[in-house]
């Protein structure tokens, strides 16, 4: 029985769904999964839709920030002026913004995506691909980085997530 004074039970397991394929769509889930392992929490990541690019070996290092459709985006830094949508659409803008952010991340020791995926897997985190997306994108096992353990149906995912928290990003 929980009394108001008792310490809440610690989180033991998280299953994180990464569904977006932009830099800002991918990193939060990776950081949360890695952070879970750092705390001794069991961690699974289920990559679905465009989030699947995170574990596609020829594409994972081409993931970029969305400079269009992102009204919170400011330049040249987080306290600068809002980037007008039409400027965000200029060729090279997304690549430029991505390289700026990558520098900031490197300074904080946040690894590039490929290295991060490897680190989470080595830390005991499990990485899975969504079956529906794999079929829809016509992907085969060779397309994935070796850290991807298994292609799961949504039913398999719920089974694997049993007894833990599910986080959708």
């Amino acid at each position, binding site marked *: 029985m929980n009394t108001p004074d008792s310490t809440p039970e610690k989180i033991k397991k998280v299953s994180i769904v990464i569904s977006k394929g932009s830099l800002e769509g991918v990193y939060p889930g990776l950081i949360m999964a890695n952070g879970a392992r750092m705390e001794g929490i069991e961690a699974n990541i289920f990559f679905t839709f465009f989030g699947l690019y995170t574990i596609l070996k020829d594409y994972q290092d081409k993931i970029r920030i969305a400079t269009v459709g992102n009204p919170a985006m400011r330049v040249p830094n987080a306290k600068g002026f809002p980037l007008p949508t039409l400027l965000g659409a200029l060729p090279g803008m997304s690549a430029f913004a991505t390289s700026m952010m990558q520098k900031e991340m490197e300074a*904080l*020791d946040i690894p590039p995506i490929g290295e991060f995926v490897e680190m989470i897997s080595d830390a005991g985190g499990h990485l899975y691909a969504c079956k529906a997306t794999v079929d829809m994108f016509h992907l085969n096992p060779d397309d994935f980085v070796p850290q991807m353990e298994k292609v799961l149906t949504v039913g398999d995912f719920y089974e694997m997530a049993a007894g833990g928290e599910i986080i959708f990003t």
Partner: protein
Amino acid sequence: MPTRTINQKEIDFDDEGFMTNHLDWDLEIAKAIASDEGVSELTDRHIVVLEFMRKEFAEKGTGPTIRRLTKESGVPTKELYALFPAGPAKKAAKIAGIKKPVGCI
């Protein structure tokens, strides 16, 4: 602030169990903290990790990120998690006698 006597030394800890003065640390203290944290034996490889953390802390005032730790101490990620199974970040910092790590990575 809780104080414990380990090996005839009075050691101060913060409320989360991290030593407040890393200079009070020695191997006997490390062993005592390790056993509280569920690490029953400190091997040479544990010591490599602890010494790297202490060196970083002495130089920078904060412990290393796990990425730096694995790249520079020569203890790879898999081994680090095997050495400190319940979470290397905080456990290793506690046993190394340094303050709680502040980064997210």
